[in-house]
């Protein structure tokens, strides 16, 4: 068990290392470099370009710069943004907090809702409740998020005036001020994640209901309600742990479109800004940061699945 955990941890670190190389190389192979990209037309002036390159240390070999960058990342030194000329850590810090706030709210609302609805749909297989939930889920999955976000703003902010349409507070606003602005983004995100998780849980519940051990439980006289709680749920919810992990990672990875539509000051919007500013160091660092979060959350989900599933936990070769 401990060896298994160590192995997973090790492979996660290796993955992260490879990702950092890929991100770095991808930026390196672009025509020009960070300075020509950022300066654009101004790069035609050789003195400005040379000054910029000198400033950014671009004359050193790529491998040295990668080591500096990666080592700095590990120590919390994320480098300096070109456009804003500020430490990236300062820029990212607040926005990442905001993204976490939104992700947590959406998870706390969406995951329990998805599990409950998924189980209900599975238990009511092919009956009206299931058909309504399943078709609703497909509907929610197929609508692009910018459409659902826009419709939400149109109806609830502009039409009914219940809440703000877009976020108007600054990135470093207190959490409470921020929270009052997260209602519509939360709803928009919840729609998508509930749809995906619901469908998986529904299928899983249906499969488990057809398993031999559920038939056996019926035939030893276990009442239906107890079969659901003791025999069906633990076995059918286990596979959803990994999808929930993926969903949380997706939420933390900056839900770019949703944040942009609602003008939410999170990491997703920052990355869009960084790209449009051609601020390559910032782009690079956000990419690596999001990759770390993604890998970390998935690792946690895998370990949780391992801990909760006796078949994996106590596997004896």
């Amino acid at each position, binding site marked *: 068990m401990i060896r298994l955990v160590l192995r997973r941890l090790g492979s996660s670190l290796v993955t992260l290392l490879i990702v950092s190389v890929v991100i770095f190389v991808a930026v390196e192979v672009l025509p020009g470099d960070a300075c020509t990209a950022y300066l654009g037309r101004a790069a035609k002036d050789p003195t400005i370009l040379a000054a910029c390159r000198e400033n950014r240390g671009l004359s050193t070999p790529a491998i040295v710069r990668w080591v500096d960058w990666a080592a700095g990342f590990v120590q919390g030194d994320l480098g300096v943004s070109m456009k804003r000329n500020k430490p990236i850590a300062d820029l990212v810090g607040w926005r990442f907090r905001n993204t976490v706030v939104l992700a947590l709210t959406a998870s706390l609302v969406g995951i329990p809702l998805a599990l409950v609805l998924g189980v209900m749909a599975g238990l009511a297989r092919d009956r009206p409740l299931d058909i309504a939930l399943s078709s609703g889920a497909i509907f929610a999955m197929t609508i692009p998020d910018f459409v659902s976000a826009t419709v939400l703003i149109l109806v609830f902010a502009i039409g009914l005036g219940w809440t703000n349409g877009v976020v108007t507070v600054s990135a470093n606003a207190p959490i409470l001020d921020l929270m009052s602005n997260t209602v519509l983004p939360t709803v928009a995100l919840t729609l998508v994640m509930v749809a995906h998780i619901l469908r998986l849980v529904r299928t899983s519940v249906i499969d488990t209901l*057809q*398993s*031999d*051990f559920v*038939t*056996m*439980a*019926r*035939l*030893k*006289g*276990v*009442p*239906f309600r107890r079969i659901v709680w*003791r*025999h069906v749920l*633990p*076995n059918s919810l*286990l596979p959803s742990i990994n999808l929930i992990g993926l969903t949380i990672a997706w939420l933390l990875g900056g839900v770019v479109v949703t944040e942009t539509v609602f003008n939410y000051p999170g990491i997703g919007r920052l990355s869009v800004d960084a790209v449009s500013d051609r601020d390559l160091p910032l782009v690079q660092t956000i990419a690596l940061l999001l990759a770390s979060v993604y890998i970390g959350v998935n690792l946690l989900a895998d370990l949780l699945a391992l801990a909760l*599933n*006796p*078949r994996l936990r*106590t*596997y*004896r*070769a």
Partner: protein
Amino acid sequence: MNPPILVVDDLAVGFTTRAGADARVLDGISIDLAQGEVLGLAGESGCGKSTLLYAMMGFLKPGLRLIGGAARYHGRALFSMSEADLDAVRGGTIALVPQNAGQSLTPTIRVGEQIGESLDLHTSLVGPARHERILGLIADVRLPDPAVIARRYPHELSGGQQQRIAVAMALAGDPDVLLLDEPTTGLDVTTQLHILDLLRDLRAAKGMAMVCVSHDLGVIAHLADRVAIMYAGAIVEARGVDAVLARPAHPYTQGLLASIPRLGTGRIPAAIPGRPPAPGTDRPGCRYAERCPRADERCTRLPPVLEPLPGEPEGRAACHHAEPRGLDAWPGDAVSGAVKDGAIVLDIRDLAVSYGKRGLLGGPMPAKAVDGVTVSLRRGEVLGLVGESGSGKSTILRAITGLWPASGGAIVFDGAIVLDRPAARRERDVLRRVQLVFQNPDASLNPRHTIAEILAQPLGLYFGLGGVAAEARAADLLRSVRLDATYLRRYPGQLSGGEKQRVAIARAFAAEPDLILCDEVTSALDVSVQASVLGLLRDLTVERGVACILVSHDLAVVRALADRIVVLHRGRIAEIGTAADICDRPSQTYTRALVAAVLEPEPGARGLRAHV
């Protein structure tokens, strides 16, 4: 005789076809179970025996419904009970031991707790008394260390241990009827014998009535007092088990018994031609008529009813020609002396195979799955490999085919070719000359290819045949496995299990191999079909002088076909000898145990006990 506690009365169960008609899976079933009696239900797959067993606890699988009749327990109609009443009966006074206990135990609950759940539902035990009872039940099914076992999850137990837990769980409600669904299928022969001993002792100790479903008449012979033979949803013969085995009255029972390979004779058993009608088939007369050697005009017109046999009021049969007959009237084919020209095809020397690899930190070397196996095989010879699961039978085949590397020794093919490379790196001609037939034709035949396409693959790959030439050759091959050319256009899904396995054999012979490896090729088949596949394999190996290695857990099957037998025990050869020597005069303790554990469907078997 004791009064019946469970009565099935003219029961009909079925499903609605897409056309809206009723298709009956059970039809006109009437049978009683007396207090303390053990009733066997036997027949081939699809005959409805399991459906009948489950109906005896008021349960029908999803999709099935009650069409008519009743099942009554102490006079109460099970199909009219409320869910709550049924829950009290099920697992309480009528308990089930399921087929495949491994999948019938909930994977996330410790087995002790699963037994505890039955106690909660059907007894008032709590606290320490409940715990004591759980351990007592585990001890009753003869598992060592009940306290340790109780804390295990199902996947941490072996198949035999899981089966015992399932029995313990069934006993928790102190039932007076125990329903057994293939209680030993999938277990090793020695484990099977222990489970049967256990069930017999439980019956003696508690006086429970039992109903035992099995496709294996050997199991029925060892457990049941009375047996109902079922065919196509109906009971065709219901009599005392010794009477049925010694002098079967119904032609189907006679055919079934004649199709079972016997350890004592080494004959290829006689197959029953044809296949049973699908549920819902409309037929005016006897449902067995089209396969029956004694059918006449009356049989195709008038359905026979289950009625007492003349001079045997306790026994019933449903046949216009019912007549108890001794089995000697249906001899199988004796194995004809195959031509063995002496050339050694395969020479295995000191073979060792290990699974797994040493850990990164250099842990202990994994145990060898096969160790020190030396055996050779001549042209036209059939070599049987027998042993329990984990004995290394299939591992040897994997090493020969190059699916898993040997870790020691050598395999020499045709005197000069050393088979040491993995299959992907072998020369095409070597691949062609060694062919493999798998256990399960459903998995080994591509369901989206027609039979013609399936057979065209080896023909194209090894001989460059295509188009009309390949098709003509494929038709020849089908004829050699006794299927006609109309099968070329069909898909595997349209064939029966036995037909699919014959196609798989035809595909192997399409390569014109020198050596054919058969891995449990008949264990997924019903006995009547198994007999025809065995006959086919025998004829093909004799005709073409092909050497064959036959891997099977069933010693009687191997006896029927093999010239020599290798008995494997924990990866090593326990004994090697001619089929007759191994089966009739085993010299090693392990072989003797294996031979003794074979359950033959002989009368008078109930008194016999495991001496393993």
